[in-house]
């Protein structure tokens, strides 16, 4: 029988309620994310981005809720559809565009692109493509922080329904559970993995049923509902922060675009689109703000305009930036100069 130190998974301390400013802040980030992504889609169609564009439309409420509850000293390893969470954690529109447009000034300097960007030194890990791989990495970062005597930190990472089928997901979550690490794993169940529907991805009734099998707390959220996402993530992140061990959050929602901008989403089941899971979280959040009387339509339209202007201006600026120069690149995979070698025709 498991005798983990971190057995009590349901920490009682209630988390702070979500206030109007919290909600509005999250909404603005969602809005920015949506507008940046629309810009990316346009740039893609205009042939200005080489390589793929993978958008998070429909997933902003969940994603922002992850990033917004993390702060300096925490770790965040976003995944494919986490533009909103990235911005909430401190990534910028500028670096987003630099990376997609291949500016030499971007954090990845043209060596890697799009969703693979990050700044590991700032707790913002740069995902590799292989799904699941970031889970143990975040767990390890947390272990190192614990060994170094730090306190009160958490780490979060996101994954899709499809990513839960990887061995890496399983090994990483299990290892984190054994050591009771403050890891929050957020599953965006957007009903598809590329074209593959849930029915060909897993057979459990609900992905949150996996939590008990790892001995971690399980949380469900309505991924189309910003308030529910904020509340659930607040609860999960604070439970992890105070020693509750890993937390598995599962949110249902629908990806509102194709897998990537090359994908026409022909496999979408129309019934899903019409069901509650197919709602657009950004629209619902707007409606909520207006219904609450926090802002009126005009004010929201103004925010939108402002953000579009900022994004467009940034894109124009980035397009004038230098692209990476192969002559300047040192073409070295190792940090230590002595270990470098090139053995191609001399």
């Amino acid at each position: 029988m498991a005798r983990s130190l971190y057995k009590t998974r349901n920490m009682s301390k209630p988390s702070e309620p979500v206030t109007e400013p919290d909600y509005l802040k999250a909404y603005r980030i969602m809005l920015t994310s949506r507008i940046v992504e629309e810009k990316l889609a346009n740039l893609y169609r205009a042939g200005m981005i080489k390589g793929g564009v993978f958008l998070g439309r429909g997933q902003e409420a969940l994603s922002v809720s992850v990033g917004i509850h993390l702060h300096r000293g925490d770790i965040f390893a976003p995944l494919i559809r986490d533009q909103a969470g990235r911005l909430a954690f401190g990534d910028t529109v500028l670096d987003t565009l630099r990376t997609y447009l291949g500016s030499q000034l971007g954090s990845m300097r043209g060596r890697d692109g799009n969703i693979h960007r990050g700044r590991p030194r700032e707790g913002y890990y740069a995902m590799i493509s292989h799904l699941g791989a970031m889970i143990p990495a975040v767990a390890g970062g947390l272990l190192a922080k614990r060994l170094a005597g730090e306190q009160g930190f958490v780490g979060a990472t996101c994954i899709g329904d499809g990513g839960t089928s990887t061995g890496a997901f399983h090994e990483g979550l299990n290892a984190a559970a054994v050591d009771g690490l403050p890891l929050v794993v957020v599953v965006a169940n957007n009903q598809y993995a590329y074209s593959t529907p849930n029915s060909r991805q897993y057979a459990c009734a609900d992905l949150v049923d996996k939590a008990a099998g790892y001995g971690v707390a399980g949380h469900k959220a309505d991924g189309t509902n910003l308030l529910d996402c904020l509340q659930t993530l607040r609860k999960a992140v604070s439970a992890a922060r105070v020693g509750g061990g890993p937390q598995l959050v599962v949110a249902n929602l629908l990806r509102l675009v194709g897998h990537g901008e090359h994908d026409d989403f022909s496999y979408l089941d129309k019934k899903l689109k019409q069901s509650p899971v197919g709602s657009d979280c950004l629209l619902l959040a707007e409606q909520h703000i207006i219904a609450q009387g926090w802002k009126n339509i005009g004010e929201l339209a103004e925010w939108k305009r402002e953000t579009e202007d900022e994004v467009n201006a940034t894109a124009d600026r980035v397009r004038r930036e230098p692209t990476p120069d192969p002559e300047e690149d040192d073409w070295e995979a190792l940090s230590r100069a002595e270990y470098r070698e090139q053995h191609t025709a001399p």
Partner: protein
Amino acid sequence: MITYLEAIRLAQQKALATDPRVFLYGQDIGTFGGAFKATKNLSKEFPGRVIDAPISEDAIVGMAIGAAIEGARPIVEMQFADFSTCALNQIVNHAATLYYRTGVPCPIVVRLPSGGTSGGGPFHSQSMEAVYAHWPGLVVVTPATVEDAYSMLLEAVTIDDPVVFCEHKFLYYHLKADSLPETSLPIGKARIARQGRDATVVTHGAMLHESLAAARELAEDGFELEIVDLRSVKPLDTDTVLASVARTGRLLCVSEEWPWGGVTSEVIARVSSEGFGLLDVAPMRVNAKDTPVPYHPDLWSVHRPTASTIAAAARRLLQI
């Protein structure tokens, strides 16, 4: 006109149609027809035999192995060759050892959409043929033409041993042929893709076409490169390579994968040790740079060998 990709689709169609033991397993290959559409319409044409898999590369290959033991002939699609690192254990330790250990062969085909394309980046561009060739127990093929993509895939399905089928994504759409071949060289035999007298270029996959372009460039200066398309890197047809070097006296090996222990290194090692006397000058190699494959097209096009870097190397080899 039939593309390289369509040839792969048609080979799978024919295998499904002619051999009831064949089935396909991989991510998004069913109704969707695969990330690259290499299985387009096949699930409709062959109901129940083109099966969508979860994102579980290790299980995908593991299942193919069990199916092969029971007499099936599975063709597995990795969405990208790069993700086969997650299935490596099943490929090299299970499929590749089964015959040696138990006497029961393991007829699976693992299709790896391989190699670089513009904007692919570090995780959608890798060439894994040298890795799989290192382990005993696998046949590793690298078709470079539409005809070979078709006939080698069909042949691979008939082979009782596990075959790693490295199809090159760079060739998918733009490489075209008028028709499909009726006959072809068997797997294990290299092909002289271009005859020449001045130097032998040994290559495979997308680099065949860069090498042919380099040869055309040198031909303008009056130098004739002979180009050997390996077709399969394991087994590696040393005889054909040696026979060509015997004619030319010079060897340039060109490969898209990383240099250390890659195909160029194996070919040079074999020619040097088995055909030392045939070499008039030092053999040379051109490979990708020894870094991850960069994302930005401007970096990528310098990272990999191209017609012009191959031509430059050939000029040095010919001391011109």
